[in-house]
């Protein structure tokens, strides 16, 4: 690792555009995320929140612009990036155990022809333990509750031992205990210097959970420390003139004062 990559920011997005089926979803996004931040990506439905992180991860191909991870193109930095997709994106009837899923987090580091070894298993066990799912290691994944499934995905991300994480709606459809556990875990990870970007849809809690916010509505509306960005003005610009959401915004801002 040369000096350039040491000082390079974990994530640098330049003029990123994405179109689905020729319909633009994201336009000219420019962001540079400093290290050790817990970033919430906030915006209305259809704002392109998931698309943004999928484009950062190379899961969807951008139609323009570029993304650099720790100063390198993504293809060279896969190992330093962890990903928690939306829970509904996989088939939970799939014939694998909890342990198998978490071990997948190690696959990116193994390379061709190698199988997960004792060390990988140890890391996977530790990750499961951290999210309180170790007792379920040998369960088939269909036998888990929504919150437990989300924890398994988090454990898989932990097992990746990355420095930059993308999480797509990790709080969707989980119980309150899991939500609290995830928040604690995220804070702990951030304190250890990891950079985490989380797609989040609940405005009132966003302010408490994240230290940095990225307001998105097809274009980047604002990016910065929560206290600076979580303003009536900017939120209104993000959510446009939607009345119900506006009142939610008003409530959220009022809570803040």
């Amino acid at each position, binding site marked *: 690792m040369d000096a350039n990559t040491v000082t390079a*920011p974990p994530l*640098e997005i*330049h003029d990123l*555009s994405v*179109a689905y089926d*020729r319909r*633009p979803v994201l*336009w*000219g996004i*420019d*962001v*540079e995320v*400093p290290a050790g931040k817990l970033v919430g990506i906030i915006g209305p439905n259809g704002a392109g929140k998931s698309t943004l992180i999928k484009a950062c991860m190379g899961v969807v*191909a*951008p*139609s*323009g*612009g*570029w*993304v*650099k991870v720790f100063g390198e*193109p*993504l*293809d060279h930095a896969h190992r330093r990036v962890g990903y928690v997709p939306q829970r509904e994106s996989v088939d939970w*009837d799939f014939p694998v155990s909890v342990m198998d899923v978490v071990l997948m987090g190690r696959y990116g580091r193994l390379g061709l022809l190698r199988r997960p070894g004792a060390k990988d298993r140890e890391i996977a066990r530790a990750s499961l333990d951290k999210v309180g799912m170790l007792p379920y290691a040998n369960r088939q994944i*269909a036998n888990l509750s929504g919150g437990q499934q989300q924890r398994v995905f988090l454990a898989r991300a932990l097992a990746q031992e990355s420095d930059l994480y993308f999480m797509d709606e990790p709080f969707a459809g989980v119980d309150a205990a899991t939500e609290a556990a995830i928040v604690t875990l995220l804070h702990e990870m951030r304190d250890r210097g990891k950079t985490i970007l989380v797609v989040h849809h609940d405005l009132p809690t966003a302010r408490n959970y994240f230290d940095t916010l990225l307001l998105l509505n097809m*274009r*980047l*509306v*604002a*990016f*910065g420390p929560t206290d*600076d*960005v979580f303003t009536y003005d*900017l939120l209104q610009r993000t959510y446009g003139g939607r009345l119900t959401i506006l009142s939610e915004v008003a409530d959220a801002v009022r809570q803040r004062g």
Partner: protein
Amino acid sequence: MTDWIPAFDPHRVFVEPWTVNVSLKLWIVVMGFLVLTTCGWVGQYLILRRMALMGDAISHSILPGLAGSFLIGAWWAGNGSASGEGGARGSVPMFLGALVAAVITTVLIEWIHRRSRVKQDAAMGTVFSALFALGVVLITVFADHVDLDADCVLHGEIGFVPFEDYFKVGGREWMPVPVARMLVVSLLTAAWIGMFYKELLVSSFDPGLATSLGISAQRVHFLLMAWLAVVIVSAFESVGAILVVAALIVPGATATLLSSNLPRIFLWITLHAAVSALAGLHLAVWLDCSIAGAMVVAGCALFVLAWAASSWSQWRARRLMATGAPPEPEERTLTAPPTPSSPGRSAA
């Protein structure tokens, strides 16, 4: 390599069919048109409901139903008055056998994917291949009683349809019996679609809304599957089990590319059926191959044309949009980026 493609002789391909033995060729085209258009109409609903491959499943799995109806017919004939060989090649037992098989298929598929974790696609694949295999075994084992040929079951042959018996009214020969039968099915299908137009539309578009309006999506599904079986059986001797899938899907798929208005789609389907029946006959005459196969190939060629046309118009629309809308994004470049914008907060 060249001897298997006959030389293209315009006289033989275009003139002879309409000068020598005209009535046979005419009835083949009419039959092909009726089959393609009837299947196309019903198939359009399969496409709308995203279950195009249900047509594949049902067309395969009615085989044991057909074989069973033959066997029962033969048994009946053997027990009762020995009315002749082959028992019932009548249409009624065949329709009934096929209907029963279609309902069993539908129920089994639903049952397997509801009651176990096997997904719908695998359930479909398992059920129809099992029933089809059963049908083939029945046909081979009881070959003496079942007047079906395993080969014919697969791709039929419109050229072998008996066009000699004419349907007569008042001493006048109107049309061959098979054509008359197909015409009746076509008219019934049209009437059926007309009658249940709104139910089919609503339940295909939004099953939830249909339920709230008091239309049972389940019942409509079974109704559609039963009617599908009737149409497939009547098309069976012309196009067989697999080409009937083409007859179900190709016209509708082509029409869907050309219009997004349902009544207009039905018009396009009819037109597509007519053109592919006509073009298919000439193709078959030229290549001296299966007429039903050639009709489907012609239909597929029309689909490719429609595909090209719609892609071209989309490309043009994109070009037009690109001139007015925000600048066309450049190629994705992951190397040599320009200097990044200032870190931290930025607002668009």
